[in-house]
């Protein structure tokens, strides 16, 4: 298992649950045992959770289930020719089957001043600890990027009473994933909570004497800051493949059953560009997908290679609000239960042939989850719009 991530951990646990009793070797560059990341932008960041609350399994679980762990070790490459995983130390480890669950890393912002103290980013527990430490004495924070990490960090830091300003290149919050209409609802929630939001602008440089003091934008803003958190997207950790077997989006290409082009090598989780039966080639970075794909690939690795066709689902908690989404593709045809203005709704996105492509809710989670079996199916728009219709009674028609 290359990557002691949620995916790698889920696959490892699933193999043992299936009764696999051979050797299992779990390798990850993080020194900690596998942990969940959602809390790093939320409860753990706010100091409401301990690190023990984050572990996927209690730390002794791996040893108790005879998993050989290499935490804090980086894999340099996977060699299909010799069926070996080569550690950064040069040590080779032979495999019969290998899973690549190496995840993603934060995209680097190439601007002057990026190396100033207190210009931080968030992916790991140590990253989060550094932000907590810096935030404790910071009074004004600038968040760069208002995707999920930026939005959740903004909400958490506002909750802690910090002044927060955000610089985001798109026209509103969460624009790329949730679209303009729903993005504006979240934008309004953040403004009401006192966040200062600057859209359609990007960072030109960070200024300061050793430690960051201000953010200068292309649009000419000069935003004072004693802490900056950069969340401008990710890149897949696909280097272990040494340039082969990659998809055009940089992920590791896998078929519907999560196998790469190389015998015995599988990939899953954030790093995998998956030939999804419903969505086509797609790479997502969702918590639920990491668990489900990891669990599924365990079957693939022992010869049960069925297609992975989960419709994808995620949530985001911001202030007292919860966003959920199922499916992938937003369309121009939105059918609503509830109202955007009430900030409590479930929005269904249909294509021109009434095929449900995605569902997004704010504080209306039930119908997103009930709609998951309907993603990719023809659904009556009037039934979707009627809150009295139980979505479980809508039998999917052939798309």
């Amino acid at each position, binding site marked *: 298992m290359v990557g002691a991530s949620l995916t790698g951990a*889920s696959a490892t646990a699933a193999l043992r649950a299936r009764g696999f009793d051979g050797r299992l070797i779990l390798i990850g560059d993080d020194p900690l045992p596998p942990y*969940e990341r959602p809390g790093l932008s939320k*409860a753990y960041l706010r100091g409401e959770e301990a690190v023990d609350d984050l572990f*996927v*399994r209690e730390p002794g679980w791996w040893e108790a289930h005879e998993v050989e762990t290499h935490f804090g070790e980086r894999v340099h490459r996977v060699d299909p020719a010799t069926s070996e995983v080569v550690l950064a130390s040069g040590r080779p480890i032979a495999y019969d089957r290998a899973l690549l669950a190496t995840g993603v890393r934060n995209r680097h912002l190439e601007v002057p001043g990026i190396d100033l103290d207190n210009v931080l980013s968030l992916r790991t527990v140590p990253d989060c600890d550094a932000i907590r430490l810096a935030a404790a004495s910071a009074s004004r924070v600038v968040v760069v990027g208002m995707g999920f990490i930026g939005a959740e960090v903004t909400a958490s830091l506002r909750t802690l009473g910090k002044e927060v300003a955000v610089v985001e290149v798109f026209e509103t919050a969460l624009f790329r994933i949730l679209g303009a209409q729903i993005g504006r609802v979240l934008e309004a929630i953040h403004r009401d909570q006192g966040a200062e939001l600057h859209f359609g602008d990007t960072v030109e440089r960070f200024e300061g004497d050793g430690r960051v003091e201000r953010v200068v934008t292309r649009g000419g803003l000069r935003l004072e800051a004693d802490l900056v958190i950069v969340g401008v997207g990710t890149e897949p950790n696909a280097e272990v493949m040494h340039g082969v077997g990659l998809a055009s989006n940089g992920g590791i290409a896998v078929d519907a059953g999560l196998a790469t082009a190389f015998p015995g090598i599988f990939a899953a989780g954030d790093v995998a560009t998956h030939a999804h039966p419903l969505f086509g080639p797609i790479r997502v970075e969702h*918590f*639920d997908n990491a*668990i489900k794909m990891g*669990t599924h690939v365990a079957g693939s690795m022992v010869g049960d290679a069925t297609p992975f066709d989960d419709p994808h*689902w995620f*949530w985001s908690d911001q202030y007292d609000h*919860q966003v959920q989404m199922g499916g992938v593709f937003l369309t121009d045809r939105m059918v609503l239960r509830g109202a955007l203005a009430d900030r409590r709704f479930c929005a269904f996105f249909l294509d021109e042939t009434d095929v449900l492509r995605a569902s997004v809710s704010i504080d209306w*989670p*039930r119908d997103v*989850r*009930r709609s998951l079996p309907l993603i990719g199916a023809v659904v009556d728009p009037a039934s979707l719009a009627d809150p009295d219709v139980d979505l479980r009674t809508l039998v999917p028609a052939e798309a």
Partner: protein
Amino acid sequence: MTFVNVAASDQVAEGQIGAWEVEGQQVAVARVGGRVFAFSDICTHRGCTLSTGELDGTEIECECHGSVFSIETGAVVNPPATDPIATFSAREADGRIEVEV
């Protein structure tokens, strides 16, 4: 451990869930196949309320993050939760639901 009067039987219809505080504990009561089941209303994953989740037979799905538990045994049926929920003995007598806590 004693049985505590929690609600009238007609407060929990077939396929429905109610929630009450019983002796300081948040307890959910569901009726499936005519039988009442009592279980902790607090998801062991991140503390969400289970009684607002989705009941499917004797399984409850947390609407926050999708964990699924058996309301019969408390066992985790689906992650992300890894720890079971507490379950309580429940019985009905004279039109009342009683839970042992």
